[in-house]
């Protein structure tokens, strides 16, 4: 059981009813790599990201996160579902940031950040409070600990959400369109926090429409359409001269 911050996927498939949303997707993300997933809506990029966190279970294929089969253990003949406790344990090592922030509205910013360490890991409250304090400062929100989510702007809420995920000390951070629900003015402050995180060597998978961020920060890039990975490779290379025609037409419209 290595905690190494890698993600490997082989031929994963996922369907919602009759609709196949992931079609033989392969993925290889090294430790410390920043990977952006781009593509039109409905292309399966969010489903792929949610699968990596176990919010969706894939139908077939190999999915190893942090070097372990996610949500299952493997025997000679089949994958068997892990019990809830084991799945929860795997999840504590994968941070997830949502488009709609999903902060707990009944808790202050500080309590949100402390929730994971205290309630799940059984951390001591004083230590968790100190950690929350440092994390808030690191996302530029020192002194906002006593604010409830409703009293914060979207950008501030998203930064608290990032801090909440970081409090669990994850090896991998997943971002599901983290800036799509924000005021254009507030996008920068969230991206700045994410850039800082990338610099520190965090493994990150980011579903995004921010091509500027992809160009500046991402190591690799995946372009998805209709459940397929159409193109993947070096981020700047793909953005500069995409090889597939579908990628070219998509990038022409968004850049």
């Amino acid at each position: 059981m290595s905690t190494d911050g890698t993600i490997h996927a082989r031929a994963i498939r996922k369907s919602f009813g009759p609709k196949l949303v992931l079609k033989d997707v392969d993925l290889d993300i090294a430790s410390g790599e920043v990977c952006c997933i781009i593509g039109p809506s409905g292309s399966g990029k969010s489903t792929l990201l949610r699968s990596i966190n176990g919010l969706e279970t894939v139908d077939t294929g190999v999915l190893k996160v942090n070097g372990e089969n996610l949500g299952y253990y493997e025997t000679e003949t089949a994958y068997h579902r892990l019990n809830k406790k084991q799945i929860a344990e795997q999840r504590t090592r994968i941070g997830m940031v949502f488009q709609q922030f999903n902060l707990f509205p009944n808790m202050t910013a500080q309590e949100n950040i402390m929730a994971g360490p205290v309630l799940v890991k059984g951390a001591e409250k004083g230590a968790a409070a100190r950690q929350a304090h440092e994390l808030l400062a690191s996302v530029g929100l020192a002194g906002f600990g006593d604010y409830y989510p409703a009293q914060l702007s979207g950008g501030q809420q998203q930064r608290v959400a990032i801090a909440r995920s970081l409090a669990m000390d994850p090896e991998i951070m997943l971002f599901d369109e983290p800036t799509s629900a924000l005021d254009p003015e507030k996008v920068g402050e969230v991206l700045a926090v994410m850039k800082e995180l990338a610099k520190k060597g965090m493994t990150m998978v980011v579903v995004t429409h921010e091509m500027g961020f992809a160009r500046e920060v991402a190591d690799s890039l995946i372009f998805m359409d209709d459940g397929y990975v159409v193109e993947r490779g070096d981020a700047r290379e793909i953005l500069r001269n995409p090889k597939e025609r579908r990628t070219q037409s998509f990038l022409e419209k968004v850049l």
Partner: protein
Amino acid sequence: MLNSNGHRRETTVSRVDPALKPRLRRRSAFEYVAWIICCLLAVGILFSVSTNPNFKWHVVARYFTHETIIRGLMLTIFLTVASMVFGTLLGLVLAIMRSSSTKPIAATAGVYITLFRGTPVLVQLIFWFNIAALYPNLTIGIPFTDISTAVDVNALIAPITAALIGLTLNEAAYMAEIIRGGFAAVGKGQIEAADSLGMSGGMKMRKVIIPQAMPSIIPATGNQVIGMFKETSLVSVLGVAELLQSAQLIYARTYETIPLLIVASLWYLVMTLLLSYPQSKLEQKYSRTSSRLPRKAKKVVLTAPEGIAR
């Protein structure tokens, strides 16, 4: 013509700054007519009620604070509080069972709710009162041993017990649905966020779902309390001397039926009004969740160590 006249006069005479003039509400002729009809009706009803000697208002006044009535009122309050408390607790259990991912548990709660919401509470009350007909003896013992005692169910199910059981079990079914509705109102994203932190099912329920479901559960529960207060009058059929039965006991003797029903009704009305005030306060309190006023954190005490600069 009149309009343009009035308009011209206003512009010439008025010294009020046009930007500060109030914008008046338009009252239709219909509104004035409706007011007049309402007032006439009210006067007519009041006149009739106060002059008709058959209402016997002096009898109402005499019995309003009669000992039997007050004792009945106390029992009504007790039945309301007890059946609401037990009903809510059982309802919470049922709601959690109903949202369980384990099918047989969810189905059990579903069947319970269907049965108890699908039959009249009056029938249920009479049923519990007569449960001894089904199970005359209740045997409490340790299985596979001879140690046991038999209890006579007829003696166990006194009218008040039957009333309490009937009201509680019925209320639990309604509360279960209210609480489950509250759970369902908590966003899917909240549950995903809790999942992604690795929270267990019970933790998610206690820390994320229940606190957020409260704003929709509490006001509905207030309504149930008001409803329950009046529903207790049904247990009068079991001979439990609650408010209505107490009034009936008196008029069975004095034949002053209407005045005593007025006494009981006035008490129900007074109690309902008293309950609606905290109910509306609760509603206001729980609709203020998105307040923008900075509030202090209640539970967490930040142990600010030296070396951490604000």
